[in-house]
Structures are given as C-alpha cells and as structure tokens.
C-alpha cells in the first residue's frame, strides 16, 4: 500500500473525531514533522556509515566491520560515544553565539524538508514557493558557520568560518541561476509542479538539451561547494585549518554539525532529484522508492567526488565561481528562457 494513503487515512480519522479543523491541521503537521525528523535522523546515520563504506572500498579497505553485519551499527555506537563526551566550551568563547551555532545549523538543515516531495503526495506542505523556500532556509547554514567561527574565539575557527561564508555566498549565485533555468521551464516554484512537469523520461530536465545538462552540472558543482565537500571543503580543510569552524566543538554539539552536514548532502541530492531527475516518478516501484533510489544515487556521486579529488585553494575557488560558473549560468538561463518562449522545445 502507498504510504501517502496511510497518512491520508490517519488524517481523515483525526478529522472525523470532530476536533476544530485548525487543531487537526496542527496535530497533522506536528506528526509529519516528527516522521520526517525521524526519517532524516536515520538517513543521516545511514549516510555516515555509507560514506565510510564507500570511501573504504574506493581506497581498497573494508571500513567498519566489527559492529554488526559489515559494521552497520557503527554510527549508532559513534553517536552514543559522542553523547557521553564532555561538552567543552573554550574559556574565552562568546557563549550564546557558541551555544546556538550548532542548533541553527541543525534546524536549518532539517527545515528544508518541509517542501521536499518524498513521493506522490508525500510532502509535508506543498508550498507554492517551494524551491525558493528551500534555498532560503538552507542558506541559514552560513549564519551558523559564521557564528561557530566567531563564537569559538579561535583563529583557526575564525578563518574557517570566514572562508565558508565567502564560499557559500559565492556558490549560492550559480546554484540559484541553475535552479532558475528549471523554474523558467516548469513555470512554477512549487516542487510538486516541477516534478509533475517531468512525467516522461525524455521530459526530465537533465535530458532537455541543451540547457538541462548544463544547468545540472552547474547545480552539482555549486551543491558540492554548498555542502562544503571535496573539492570545495576549504572551510574545514583539515590539513590547513585543522578542522575549520568546528575545531573547538566537542560532544553533542559536534555531532549536530556532523549530522547537519550529512542531512545537507541529502538535501542537495533530493533537490537534484526533484529538479532534474524527474523526482519520485518511475515505473513499477512505489514513488517513494524511486525518490530514494535517485537521491542515494546522487549522494553516491557526491561521495565519489570527495574520495577522488584534491582540494582547491580559496582564491581559485572564488575565481571558478565568479569568472566561470556565474557567466555560464546566466547564459544558460537566457537560453532556457528563449527555448521556453519560442515554444519549439515544449515536447
């Protein structure tokens, strides 16, 4: 049975109890939030494990093997360990800023899922400005990185925070432009509408030559930078800045940054799936399975990048964004607009 039908049934059951409709909606939303949160927490734990396994096999190792079958509960063990760790705060840290930074990172990472369709009808709230909302809310991550860098009162953390702010702001621009190309073609900002405009496989935006693949590549590059992953992991360049913005964090606060990072990776993969790969649509299997298959495929690509490439230098990173990606993105956006308005490509 479709999961969407179960939720629908539960909602109707709640509505039939005769509670005021506003209260019903609040309860339903709260329930949805809890379900999504639990799902994402599981996904984040799974991704940590997956990252270790993927990296290990790329490097001809095995990775975790002892805790459970092929080490599948390794991340649970790690999370429990992190919970037990002492939560230290540097003596000269700016306490409120230091305290709130990981929480903001965590919340911002999870908030994006309000508007992401996990399957046909599986969406917390189909906002009519869905993609705009997602991009806006994920940008909050920068604030948390800056807060962490500033609040730690450490030079390494400060350098890391500043670098990441500059980087994420720079790559936000090409990312939004590449997304806009899709929005222009779909004619809607709503995630559901965008998915539904790609009903057939040749309608997927990645296959809409010539603008689609270009937008997709720009998006992938910008998303890699946005999630601070190699080759753009400069904010946390271990070999230069030791650990970057989160160098002073320990225990659960560190775990929150860590989990937020993996949730963010899942977010950008989910957006790529929704915008370019036809979202939940596919034959035979239930829609949410297709969504997960495509999203994890994207996640694998990001992991593949990470374990293959060296890291760029800060100034080279900026140059690449402003001198190459942004002009290319704008040209691509104009192309998409022309293709849409000419009406010749609307197959």
């Amino acid at each position, binding site marked *: 049975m479709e999961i969407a039908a179960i939720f629908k049934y539960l909602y109707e059951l709640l509505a039939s109890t005769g509670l005021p409709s506003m209260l019903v909606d609040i309860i339903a939303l709260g329930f949805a939030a809890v379900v999504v949160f639990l799902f994402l927490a599981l996904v984040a734990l799974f991704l940590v494990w997956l990252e270790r396994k993927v990296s290990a096999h790329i490097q001809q190792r095995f990775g975790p093997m002892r805790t459970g079958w092929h080490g599948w509960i390794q991340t649970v063990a790690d999370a429990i360990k992190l919970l037990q760790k002492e939560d230290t705060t540097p003596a000269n840290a700016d306490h409120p800023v230091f305290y709130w930074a990981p929480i903001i990172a965590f919340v911002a990472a999870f908030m994006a899922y309000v508007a992401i369709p996990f399957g046909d009808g599986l969406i917390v709230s189909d906002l009519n400005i869905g993609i705009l909302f997602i991009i806006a809310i994920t940008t909050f991550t920068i604030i948390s990185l800056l807060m962490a860098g500033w609040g730690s009162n450490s030079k390494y953390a400060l*350098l890391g925070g500043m670098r990441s702010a500059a980087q994420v702001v720079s790559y936000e621009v090409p990312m939004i432009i590449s997304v806009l190309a899709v929005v222009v073609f779909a004619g809607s900002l709503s995630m559901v509408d965008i998915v539904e405009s790609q009903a057939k496989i040749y309608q997927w935006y990645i296959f809409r030559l010539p603008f689609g693949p270009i937008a997709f590549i720009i998006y992938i590059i910008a998303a890699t930078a946005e999630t601070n992953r190699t080759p753009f992991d400069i904010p946390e360049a271990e*070999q230069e800045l030791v650990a970057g913005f989160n160098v002073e964090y320990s225990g659960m606060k560190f775990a929150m940054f860590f989990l937020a990072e993996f949730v963010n990776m899942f977010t950008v993969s989910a957006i790529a799936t929704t915008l370019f790969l036809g979202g939940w649509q596919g034959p035979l299997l239930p829609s949410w399975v297709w969504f997960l298959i495509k999203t994890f495929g994207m996640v694998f690509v990001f992991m593949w990048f990470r374990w293959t490439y060296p890291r760029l230098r800060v100034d080279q990173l900026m140059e690449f964004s402003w001198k190459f990606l942004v002009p290319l993105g704008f040209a691509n956006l104009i192309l998409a607009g022309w293709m849409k308005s000419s009406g010749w490509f609307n197959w």
Partner: protein
Amino acid sequence: MSELRTQEFQINMGPQHPSTHGVCRFILTLDGEVIIKAEPVIGYLHRAIEKICENRTYAQCIPVIDRFEYCTSMSSEMVFVLAAEKLAGIKIPERAEYLRVIMLELNRIASHLIWYGTTSLDLGAITPFLYGFREREDVLDLFEMTCGQRLTYNYIRVGGVSRDIPKEFIPKCHEFLDKFQGKVDDYERVLTENPIFLVRNKNVGVLTPQMAVAYGISGPSLRASGVKWDLRVDDPYSIYDRFRFEIPSFQNGDCYDRYLVRIKEMRESAKIVGQAIEQMPEGDIMAKVPANFKPPKGEVYSRIENSRGEMGAYIQSPGDSKKPLRVKLRGGSYNQLQVMPELVRGHKVADVVAIMASLDIIMPEIDR
C-alpha cells in the same frame, strides 16, 4: 566615518598540526590569507644522536643512526658505514655491495611512496594516500623477511650487511617490481593530469636554480629546478656506476615539477633494483672486520644521494679507539626547511602545505 583598520595576525602552525610532517612548527604572519612572514621553529625532535654516537662503538652507533632519518633508515646506515669503511680502508664483498644497492633503492621507493601519500593528503585527496601505503607495505615486507625489521633495519654493517636475503626474497621482489610500474601509472592517473592538482601545484613555490644552489638544496628538489645533480652519477659511491638509469630533471622548479621528478625517480629506482638482482653474484656478505674495530686516526666525510637530497656523515677518529671522537650528520631536509620562508612569502596558507609537501621535509633529519 572612521577608517577601517586592518591588522596582520599571527597563527601558529604546529608542532601538533596534521600537515607539518612530524613536529615542525611555523609561526606565520598573515595578512588575511596571504603570508607575509613564515618563521620555522625546529628542535622538537632533537635526540642528540650525534652526541650519543661519541659514547658508542661503531657497531653500536648503527641502531642509533637508524633513527637519524627513519623514513630511509637504510640510507642513514649506509652513509655512516661508508664513512667508517673509508676511514679503515675496508673493501667489502661484491654480493654485499649489491644487497646494499637493492635495499637502498627499495628504501628510496618506500620513502617516495610516503611522500606521494602525504602530498596528496595535504592537498586534500585522501585516497592516493592509501594507494601509496599499500605498495610501501610490500617493500616493508621485503625488508622484514630480510632483517626482521620494518622501519629501523640495523642491516648495513661495517664490512657488509648483517645477513643474506632469504630464498623467497627474489621471487617476491620480482613480483613487486613487475606490478610496480603499473601501480605508478595508477598514481599518475589519479593526480598528474587532474586539473585541480595542476592549479594547486603549477607555479606554486617556484625555486629558481640560483636560489636552490645558494641554499644548498640537493636531491629531487634541486633536479626539479633544472640542476641535474645526483651523487649516484656525479660522485658515484658503492657500485652505482654499474647500472643504467636516468636522472629525471625538470626546468620550472615549482611544486608540480618536484612531483614529477619524484614519480619518475620511483620508476628509475625500480629499474636499478631489477638490474641489481640480475647481476648479483653469489659469495660472502661480510668482509673480515675485527670484532674490536678500531679505525686509524683521521677524519672522513662520506655522502650519498638520499631521497631527500645529499646525506652526509662526517666522522673524526682519535685513533686506537673503538668509539668515534666526533660524528656529524647532514640531511637534505635542513636546507629545504631553510628555503621555506622565502618560498612561501606572498602565497596563501594552503600553499604552505603544498610547498612543504612537495619539498618532502622530514623532521628527524633536521633535529637529529
């Protein structure tokens, strides 16, 4: 509106830092991300090896000297033993000479593999690090089956080597050499033409030939600057004049050329090992050296080509004594560290790491 004031600030890189290769410490003065001044601080790994040697017999010195440059312990032993043999005028058997060359070159490969791994790691690519260490493991296995040690071998002795290679050494070594060129191809495929690797390394940390010579830099870093100088050819020791091999050399002197030189050197070293195994005669592995080894009065300096440049040992013998009067060791890294402040000035923080990795600095050689 009040004027914004900018300020230089100092950061301390090391001695506990993931990419300073041991316990090197830099005090960096930064203007934003640009380095204005870099000041290396050394001495965190000082073990007084030279002084300790004054109170030990020559045979007892060797295990200590092993720790002088522990990435290439064979070279450390070799340079000291060569000096002692020169002092006493000992002629060593043919087979021992060949064994020494095989071990030295294998050790050079192992050392370059560490360099390959750490360089890629410092540039943020983690996977090549494990590739490098995978092949290094094979080399260490060969050492282990020969002398029982994997890092500090105590293998080369005054008068020859401590023991002959076991039967299974030669097939194992052939197996390694056969696959090694292919593995180096793999290494190159990951990095050599990777655009990110290129932008990180090309024209970064350019060491001009004049500067290199003025600072006394030797080894691969010198050859990358266009000065073709290799002691194995230009001042042959042991039996290096019997092998055919190339001395790779490049012109630009940037990090990328230093990378290419070392990659090519690994290939050449493998060729030398192959030739040495082919030519190696049967026979003794130890010359007749009295247990009570007392070299005559005098002083001597010997030098060999190590993977990090010229390695030298100076021994002063008082005559009629089992112990040296004075030992002085020279490592190539010292000069390379000296040139660092000049090389990194005007570069970014990330380049310090790239330059240091490409010079292949190792601290035990500097602090001794």
